């Protein structure tokens, strides 16, 4: 069994190496033979050089400056979204009056794509960090809130009834029955929020920023440094992937009772 599995994995990685390697070779050939001008598509070697340039300090600021600029904004907006979104979603599921007041407003605002808030955020908060924090917040709060709501709603009434019959009061039912049963769904929402927050941060940095990875892309565009543009996409993807995978591992740790759900 184990051997079959490892053979399968080996075959998969062989395919991966061939397909990604083939793509890179094709990319290199395309630029090398001038099928595409290196002005619009830098050769892979230039991109690697540009990554090193960013790491070693592009335009006088090191990688760390861009990393911390992007990270601080994303985390701030994200944490505010969690602390507002999860309790609001839970109380909407629990208290009909809260639901009645907030649900129509949230459903009205929800179809507006978060990036559409960028210009308004600039008007309201200026061009410093706080406008980006706001846009990230808008993007991140929706999945938090909806999943907190869904999670509480999905709690099996049988469990609640059983607990009530055993004499548990409202608070005990909430903390001992509803919360554990809702937590997996809530955590999934929080994870989706993180992805949204990161994507929206990049959008916001493309529009208004003086540091950060999105800024690197748009600055490369403005200075016609195509290799810098391409290079900046790598840390963005890496951080996005690391956050998602890290969160999945964390979920497994935090809620071992979580039933597998497709995602």
């Amino acid at each position, binding site marked *: 069994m184990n051997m079959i599995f490892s053979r399968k994995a080996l*075959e*998969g990685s062989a*395919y*991966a190496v*061939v*397909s*990604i390697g083939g*793509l890179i070779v094709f990319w290199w050939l395309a630029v090398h033979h001038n099928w595409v001008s290196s002005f*619009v598509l830098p050769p892979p070697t230039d991109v690697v050089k540009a990554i090193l340039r960013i790491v070693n300090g592009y335009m006088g600021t090191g990688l760390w400056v861009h990393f911390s600029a992007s990270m601080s904004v994303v985390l701030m907006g994200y944490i505010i979204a969690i602390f507002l979104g999860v309790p609001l979603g839970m109380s909407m599921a629990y208290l009909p009056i809260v639901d*009645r*007041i*907030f*649900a*129509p*407003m949230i459903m*009205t*605002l*929800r*179809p*507006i*794509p*978060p*990036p*559409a*808030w*960028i*210009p*308004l955020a*600039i*008007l*309201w908060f200026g061009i410093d960090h706080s406008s980006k924090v706001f846009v990230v917040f808008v993007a991140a709060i929706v999945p938090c809130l909806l999943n907190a709501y869904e999670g509480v709603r999905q709690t099996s009434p049988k469990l609640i009834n059983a607990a009530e019959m055993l004499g548990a009061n409202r608070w005990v039912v909430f903390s001992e029955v509803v919360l554990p049963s809702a937590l997996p769904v809530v955590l999934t929402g929080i994870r989706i929020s993180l992805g949204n927050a*990161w*994507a929206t941060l*990049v*959008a916001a940095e*493309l*529009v208004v920023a003086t540091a950060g990875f*999105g800024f690197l*892309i*748009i600055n*490369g*565009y403005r200075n016609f440094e*195509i290799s810098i*543009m*391409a290079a900046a*996409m790598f840390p*963005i*993807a*890496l951080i*996005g*992937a690391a956050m*998602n995978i890290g969160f999945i591992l964390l979920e497994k740790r935090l809620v071992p009772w979580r039933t597998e759900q497709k995602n």
Partner: protein
Amino acid sequence: MTHVHPPGLGARWLKALDASSIWLSLIFWMFLWFFVVDIFDVDQSLLPNPAKVIQQVVWLWSNQVGAGGLLNHISSSFQRFLGGFLLAAGVGSVLGLWMGYSRRADLSVNPVFELVRYVPPIAWAPFSILWFGASFGAQVFVIFISALPPILINAHRAVRSIKPGLINAARMMGASPLIILAEVSLPASFPLLFSGLRIGVATGWMALVAAEIVAGDGSRSGLGYLVLIGQQTLRPETTIAAMLVIGLIGAAFDVGLRYLQRRIIRW
């Protein structure tokens, strides 16, 4: 839960109350917005009151901003959206179905897909402006990139979800591969395929607005352009009016597609 009452007078009353509570809540928030602006004397260049925003929608309809009136902006946004979405729907469903059928295709396309999956679609915007120009091609490309994953993943899943028993049964009754594809595989995979397309519409519409904003005021048309130009000319009523229209169209897409889904897929 087992006993279903026919909707009597009481139920109808409750339903009416339910519907009216939505309007009540919306009216409450509108008034709150109105009075907050009024009482705190909020600067009109920061937040106009809701009446002004509604007025601005009407004003935009008949007056020219950038390339034309509101209808003009809506139609150019719509054309970009349609271009990118149709491209993603075509490529995504074909590639996804193929990956579902052939293990080799799956193994070779998947790594590339995983590689670019974590790049937020909007990060491609500057590249696509460079490659395809700021006014049409850039948005089409970004919409394509962002609508492709949900369509592809669901097409792939759709093929995988077909029960082998169904195909075997058809084969046993002598159906040719083409008949199996048309009569068994496609109907069986259609529901998942369709929900992929629906998600693709939502992500594509979102990407469009982002791409139009990143493309800047160079394109002079589109709803995202209106959002941006409202900020640049310190007219938040234009920005909010355009956001309202964007949200309404997005919601209309979703409602329409859900309705279609229920109508088409009755099995």
